[in-house]
């Protein structure tokens, strides 16, 4: 590191690397997309052509949502050189609390299926999640107990609490409005709205590319070549609209479609009525966008990364590192509560086993998504993609008929391999 500065401009080369460089695409992201493609095609072949079907992909998107939501928070936790092993148990206790609140407590006060039940339940759950996370964060940041230990304790405590809340009973059913959070045949936005979201997302991609370009020109910074910008815009739009097209080609079950058509006095068109994007998926997309904004555009995110990069530098820069860590864990708890709401709504029940082993999926998603356990490095979009990889693996194995114990073995091995790749990558970079 003590060598003289080398700042000779590289001669322009037309290799694949320089093409990607011009578009400023991360090679790790590309590797992840490659892994996803391999997994998808592999399971498609192994399952005899049932994996890459609209029906399976629609289900996959719904199953991915909860893990993706929590993985966005885990990125920030790991970036600060911490870990949260308690997310699965927190999901259990928060989910159980929300189930009890809406199924046993609120009906006694408001009456059965009151229109406010779902929102009161949701807000209470989010508050509880944030509070549990903040409690972990307080012990970690201010008392100084390593996060590994605090959240390992949390893993046991909250799982036990989830059981104790209802003595292990299963609480069902959930409030009818609350159920919509979980997707299912009613909890989705329909075909036209899905297309509208796809088009808005496309416009958004183009808008942000243009704004970025204008900002760079305004300050006289280097611009990406126009062809690179155009390619990025086209790739982005094709992916978004392609995903919507796949989702929308999964129709409602026939009986439901007939009922739906009858209510509106229309005929069921050939090919059925599209379900559209499921609510949990929509929630996950909104969470991922908000978390990306928080991580890259807000001071809080900058501080999280600064703490991960060099805690001493962050301190000397006047950053309140303890408060930032506490807030990161509170945010994690909040996101776990969203995951808990989605999961209980989808199951239409609260059980004390809810979220068991979720911490492994969430951590694996973040690490596969490029979050470095060394701290300081990670992206929200990577974690969301990592969640999709993990869920693809799991639901692919279910589809192919792999036994549950073998599934756990595979997930465990994948987690270790992901960390090994990260370690090797960092060692190579350090040279």
């Amino acid at each position, binding site marked *: 590191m003590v060598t003289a500065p080398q700042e000779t401009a590289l001669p322009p080369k037309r290799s694949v690397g320089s093409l990607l460089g011009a578009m400023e695409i991360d090679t790790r992201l590309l590797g992840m997309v490659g892994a996803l493609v391999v997994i998808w095609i592999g399971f498609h072949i192994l399952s005899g052509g049932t994996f890459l079907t609209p029906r399976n992909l629609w289900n996959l998107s719904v199953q991915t949502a909860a893990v993706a939501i929590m993985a966005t928070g885990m990125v920030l936790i790991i970036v600060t050189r911490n870990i949260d092993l308690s997310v699965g148990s927190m999901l259990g206790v928060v989910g159980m609390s929300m189930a009890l609140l809406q199924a046993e407590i609120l009906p006694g006060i408001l009456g059965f299926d009151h229109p406010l039940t779902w929102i009161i339940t949701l807000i209470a759950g989010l508050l509880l999640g944030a509070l549990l996370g903040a409690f972990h964060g307080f012990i970690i940041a201010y008392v100084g107990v390593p996060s590994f230990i605090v959240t390992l304790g949390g893993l046991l405590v909250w799982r036990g609490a989830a059981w104790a809340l209802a003595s292990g009973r299963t609480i069902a059913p959930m409030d009818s409005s609350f159920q919509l959070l979980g997707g299912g045949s009613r909890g989705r936005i329909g075909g036209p709205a899905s297309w509208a979201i796809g088009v808005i997302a496309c416009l958004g991609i183009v808008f942000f590319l243009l704004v970025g370009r204008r900002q760079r020109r305004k300050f006289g910074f280097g611009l990406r070549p126009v062809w690179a910008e155009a390619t990025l815009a086209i790739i982005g739009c094709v992916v978004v609209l392609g995903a919507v097209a796949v989702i929308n080609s999964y129709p409602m079950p026939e009986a439901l479609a007939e009922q739906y058509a009858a209510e509106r006095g229309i005929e069921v068109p050939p090919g059925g009525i599209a379900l559209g994007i499921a609510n949990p998926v929509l929630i996950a997309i909104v969470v991922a966008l908000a978390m990306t904004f928080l991580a890259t555009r*807000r001071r809080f995110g900058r501080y999280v990364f*600064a703490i991960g990069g060099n805690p001493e530098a962050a301190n000397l820069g006047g950053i309140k590192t303890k408060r930032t860590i506490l807030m990161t864990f509170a945010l994690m708890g909040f996101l776990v509560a969203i995951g808990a709401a989605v999961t209980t709504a989808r199951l239409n029940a609260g059980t004390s086993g809810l979220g068991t082993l979720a911490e492994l999926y969430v951590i694996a998603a973040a690490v596969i998504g490029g979050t470095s356990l060394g701290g300081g490095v990670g992206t929200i979009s990577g974690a969301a993609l990592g969640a999709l990889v993990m869920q693809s693996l799991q639901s692919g194995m279910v589809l192919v008929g792999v036994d549950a114990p073998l599934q756990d073995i595979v997930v465990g091995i994948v987690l270790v391999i992901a960390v090994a790749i990260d370690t090797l990558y960092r060692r190579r970079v350090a040279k």
Partner: protein
Amino acid sequence: MTVKTGSPMVEMRDIRVSFGGVHAVDGVSIDLHPGEVVALVGGNGAGKSTLIKTLSGAHPANSGQIFIDSRPVTIHNPIEAKNLGIETIYQTLALADNIDAPGNVFLGRELRTRLGSLDDSAMESATRKVMGRLNPRFLNFKKAVGWLSGGQRQSVAIARAVHFNARVLIMDEPTAALGPAETAQVGSLIRQLKDEGLGIFLISHDIHDVFDLADRISVMLTGKLVGTVKKEEVTKDQVLGMIIMGKLPDEVTQAELADLHG
């Protein structure tokens, strides 16, 4: 620009810092005038860095007083020091390696848009401006600073210190990790900042650097101030004598001096 007034811009009086039972800094008083470079020298564990940390806000003093422009101040943390116009370039540079140069220059003092988001473009623009003055060959504004060479990282740390119109600059071993060309560059920068009227505390173990750049030299040994001398009134040998034996030049005998040269 250089205004030499009678009273010092920084005066540290009878500063004491102890860790457990160890007196790392034991009743040291030093001062600094505008446009002046005061070198702080001494062997390992002499207490130079600890003393200076009480001024930069990184570590509080157990007792003693600090005066800025003859007004007593208390400095509890780095932000309070910075608000008083005291900027520090740490020996470790204190850079977040995973963040780019503008992010590091503005770490803890980010520029924000009206809606409170980070204004990266404005921060990059300001960083380009200050770098243009310090190190025009610096071009890596988008790379995380961990990827940069030692000299470039040093430039980022210095840019962070001078961008915010510092009045007092503390440089802890600024050339320890640099090659000869970069060391010369830092030297000319120190002269430039001095001409602009900044006061500079220079911590260094390199006696040549010190004689090159400093106006006065304060020598510490095992937590105590041996003495402060004007550069033109002493030789390098005499300063070495102060560093090693803890004696002022007129206290040293010929025999001891001969001893020093082995």
